[in-house]
């Protein structure tokens, strides 16, 4: 079973998207761990480690994505979790999204994204190696 941590870094409390995605992934048969709000990058890395996550979905709408997402990526690498799939969702301008993908984010989902699109993406990328 694919294990996904849905994480809310930063100070904003916009959790509608995170909760909808968490439910959609659970309904699609994944094991979902939702961190709750106001997580620091370290806390998110720690959760990914503890929960043996296949993927981390970062939901952020505070505009601080260019500060916080790279820290989470670095933290994961430092813990030997460089192979954990990282996806980001939120109000992310295309320039920033491109930069995040360059840094190692597998996909950036912006407003209007279909939950089934996200489910398919995770299934595809986290499929167990035969």
């Amino acid at each position: 079973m694919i294990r996904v941590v849905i994480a809310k870094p930063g100070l904003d409390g916009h959790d509608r998207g995170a909760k909808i995605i968490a439910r959609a992934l659970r309904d699609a048969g994944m094991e979902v761990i939702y961190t709750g709000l106001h997580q620091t990058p370290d806390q998110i890395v720690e959760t990914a480690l503890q929960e043996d996550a296949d993927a981390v979905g970062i939901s952020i709408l505070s505009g601080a994505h260019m500060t916080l997402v790279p820290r989470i990526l670095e933290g994961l690498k430092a813990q030997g979790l460089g192979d954990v799939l990282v996806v980001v969702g939120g109000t992310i301008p295309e320039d920033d999204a491109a930069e995040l993908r360059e840094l190692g984010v597998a996909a950036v989902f912006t407003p209007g994204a279909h939950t089934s699109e996200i489910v398919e993406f995770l299934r595809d990328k986290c499929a167990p190696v035969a």
Partner: protein
Amino acid sequence: MSLRDTTDQSLEGWREAYAATPERKGELFSTLSGLESEPLTTPEMVDVDYDRDLGYPGQFPFTRGVYPSMYRGRLWTMRQFAGFGTAEETNERFRYLLEHGQTGLSTAFDMPTLMGYDSDHERSLGEVGREGVAVDSLEDMQTLFNGIPLGEVSTSMTINSPAAILLAFYACVGERQGVSRDKLRGTIQTDILKEYIAQKEFIFPPEPSMRLVTDMVEWCATEMPLWHPISISGYHIREAGSTAAQELAFTLADGFTYVEWALERGLDIDDFAPRLSFFFNAHLDFFEEIGKYRAARRIWARELRDRYGARDPKSLLMRFHTQTAGVSLTAQQPEVNIVRTAIEALAAVLGGTQSLHTNSYDEALALPTEDAVRIALRTQQVIAHETGVVNQIDPLGGSYYVEHMTNEMERQAYAYFDQIEKLGGVVEAIKQNFFQREIADAAFRYQAEVEQQQRIVVGVNRYQLEDDTAPAILKIDPALEDKQIARVKELKARRDNAAVESALAELKRGAASDTNLMPLIVDAARVDVTMGEMCDAFREVWGIWRETPTF
């Protein structure tokens, strides 16, 4: 067609004819909130007693409006929410808006300020000035309102957990401009209950937070009598995904809770109720929204009079600000958002709002550019000056459907009041995650309907463009964060730190007792204690709040 058919005026005849015509396939006929509706509302479906349920504008139960003349006397206040970067940038935006005909100011603070962290706090990194303006100190507040005479404008400040501190800053800026507190006009949001319910910008646990709110209500009643100390807000509840009825019910329930705390404090209802104001969302389902506003006025007036014993007619008036629904904006084909916003704004006006913020079309992408904000403001001006809707008070009153919708909103609100009561009231229901669950369920249902194409969102799940290019967006200069951090550090080094320590000690003593904290906060502001330091003092005494994550 027979001759008999042309003379048939019966409801049964219409029903038969309707049933014989196929309905459109695939799409839902229910409202955006999922409320099933008949294809036609007929007179016998609407239970309205004119005097009991509608009345005349400015008369109980105020369904048709809170003022006798409504927009024929004065238009609503056009109040665009603004804030980004440091106080200097936002001060410039404020002046731009005033020059373009805006009639009131509305301040958006950045996330660190909303969450009670100074700009130099490690948790603030990357967030300073991003979603609003950073205000750490009285000095920042002075810069924010530089050259704007506080005796002449009305100002709205959107802040909740640290509201008492920002209110003290504002009062002190007035004082330094030579404007006494009792002349200051405006609103501060302060609505902490909806933070636990929906927006989640909470710091302290509910009880001390409610005590701080009540301190503000008590202090404003004597010190700042023209000020609205709370703006009881459904906006964020709706943005979090609630239905219209949930927005209405939860907001009113929050309102009753503030009233009960103030009464418990020993205040007279008529000493504070006239200064309570409200803030609603304007979403796309036109008639549902209008029914919501009309029901809100009627319920508030009735409950204030009959349940809380208000005698001053001003205590019964629900005056509200409205903002169009940010959640309805799409990142796809963003220009279409101008149309959505115009329709939503029209609903707010037909619903009798006292002030209005129209969203800018680029807000699903970033904070708005100046051009986008100007179009949003112009949208209000078109409604006000070109459509003629302002010349008739409550023009939809008496419409079978609108009256039915008003009744239906009211019925659903009372059903929720009963549920909340059974859970032990709003604070208990928050602790049991009741609201959070109800809202998440509604949000999920809506998303599923969109994904199954049962609801069409233009440009998102139909009428998409192959080449959907994004417009130029506002970029916040990252250097502003460093500038603000340097500024607060410099202040902390320069001020009289002995005075700061003693003010903080007083604040902690006050927080641990049951004295009104407002005078102590004002004292601390005057000696340049920062917002974050005051919040830390309260954190030390009261602890912090964490919600149990659920989805």
